[in-house]
């Protein structure tokens, strides 16, 4: 009893936020509130799935499944993290399930990629170079193990804080840092042979385009 009350008191500070209220409304069974939730998080969830799996063919199905998961387990959401973080966690876990179940044969479908490591062109056109670089990074990410790819995506794609990432992946803050570090180093190593001096000239070329 006492511990229960304690746990419940933890979310006192969060009561005023719109997120919290939406969560409570959903938990109380309001379907209108839930539709609002879907509207709010649909694109975020979809983008995250796309980044992690990079497979447009299953994207919408998975997004739907994630929201059904959210719907069926909203009762269990205990407000220890923000609603968004919690949904992200479900999304990441769902992607992992998918990978595990091998419904997705390849994490990354190369046929959709115009870029291959060997075909790194010699073009000097800034835009083309840009596009090639993007493709190359995508390819590089696809070469990483899932957990390393995911953490880069959460940090650099979704621009989440370390705390949020720790919350989503349920790992320690220190682990976030070290894994992120490891992941970036791995990515660098994967890209390095193809990147060559490109990295060095980048800085001057990148600015005018972006």
């Amino acid at each position, binding site marked *: 009893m006492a511990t229960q009350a304690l746990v419940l008191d933890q979310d006192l500070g969060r009561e005023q936020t719109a997120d919290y209220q939406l969560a409570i409304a959903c938990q109380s069974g309001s379907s209108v509130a839930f539709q609002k939730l879907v509207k709010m998080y649909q694109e975020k969830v979809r983008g995250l799935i796309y*980044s992690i799996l990079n497979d447009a063919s299953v994207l919408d199905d998975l997004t739907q499944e994630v929201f059904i998961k959210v719907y069926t387990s909203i009762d269990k959401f205990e407000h220890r993290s923000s609603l968004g973080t919690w949904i992200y966690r479900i999304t990441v876990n769902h992607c992992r399930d998918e990978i595990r179940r091998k419904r997705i044969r390849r994490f990354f479908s190369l046929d959709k990629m115009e870029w291959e490591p060997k075909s790194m062109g010699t073009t000097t056109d800034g835009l083309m170079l840009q596009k090639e670089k*993007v493709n190359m990074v995508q390819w590089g990410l696809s070469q990483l193990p899932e957990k390393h790819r995911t953490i880069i995506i959460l940090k650099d794609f979704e621009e989440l804080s370390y705390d949020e990432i720790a919350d989503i992946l349920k790992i320690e803050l220190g682990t976030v840092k070290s894994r992120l570090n490891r992941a970036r180093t791995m990515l660098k190593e994967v890209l390095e042979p193809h990147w060559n001096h490109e990295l060095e000239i980048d800085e001057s070329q990148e600015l005018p385009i972006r």
Partner: protein
Amino acid sequence: MNRKNCLFDESLLTAFLDNQATETEKELVNQHLPTCPDCSAFVDTHLQLKAAVRQTAETSKPEANPYLYGEIVNKLQKKSVSKLQQRKLQIAFATVVFLLIGFGSIYSIMVSSSTTDQKLASNRVPSTSHANVQHLLDPMTGSDMLIYLVKNSVPLTVQRTSYLTIHQPMGQSAELVFSSLGGPMVDWLQILSNAQILPDDQLKEVDHVVKLYANWVRDGIRFNTHGDVLINPELVNYRKQMMVMLESNLGKSHSDKLISWIHSRINGLYQDGSSSFSVKIPVQVNIVRYKGLENTMFAKIPSEPFTQRNLSQLLPVYEKNVWPGKMDSPEDVTVIARNVALFTIAPEKSEPKVAIQPIPSIKSESPSGLSIIEMNELAYLLRSGVTPEQIIELKSVVDHRINDYVAAMKDLQVQLKNSRENESGFRVTVPPAEHQAFVGGNSMGGTPIKSQDSIKTKKK
């Protein structure tokens, strides 16, 4: 680039270039970088890498699917509909249990219309303080009277079929209502608990569930016109209390089950896309009839709702005088009006022992041509401080029998004055603590609940 020669913490560098380092950490890194070519190279490379990844993130976004939202919502609706169908049985079961165990045991006390029974009745009524009786006069909390009746084992008669109605217009709070009684569900549960019938587990379960449900729906969620969710801050507290209460009463697994049951009940109420929902569950409700009260309480209640006349005209008056801030819809007015009709009663003058008696002043056949219910309504309005002018103004909109009203009111005012002077009528007394508790538990007032008596007191 490989920082072989430097022992500086790499995760600090990572935090630095992710802009996640604390001020002290930033300072550390800033101090260190100029002195260490390895670490500078590391930061440079990683910054470039990060920039490249960010760029990738921005260019590789999936094409938008405008139909996705609709698909998701569709799927969810199917899901909750099938959930709902599953639950229908449970609801039926719950209702049956509730009625069988709850009402069955309470209202099995019956009385037929013989004089011996009447004698029996008055024997059973314990002598009550005047304050109790005054409290029962409150037309808004008619169910308090029922509580009183049950508590004091006043003989009751079983009658009539009723409906348990859940009504919630979009954007407004909902209410569970027994259609022929007007009292919210919660009050009935209050009766159950006050009757001190030890509920078996199932009754307890249903009791809790319905209470929770009613509270949540009523107090919890509103939507403004933009569709934003507005949560009554009370809901958060309610929720906590209820969860703790449920869990301590029923155990974790059981309470989890119940909570999801509640959620599923509330789920899908707006599913058909309409802006309001109304669920009618027919139940065989046993209406209370007290022997001495036929003339006022339940007698001659028209089969159609009392408020078929345009009662929404009365809304401002009721709102101002009766139920501040809690009027949601004409339906609510119906409920209130019915309450007024049902529970306008007065204490008996001569025999304080038999506490509840018909209002002596209102004869069954009014000379003014108004029906007894109309007379009751008038009496109530006058008592609650509405001036005759206001009443006439209101009535002239909906009723042409103004002269009748004027006559009746003159009559009534004299009687009311007399009854006040005799200290038997409508004087306000502070209810005892236990009755305060009832008022507090009454759902109609919402939060924070004012005792009706205190409202009346202010008027005078």
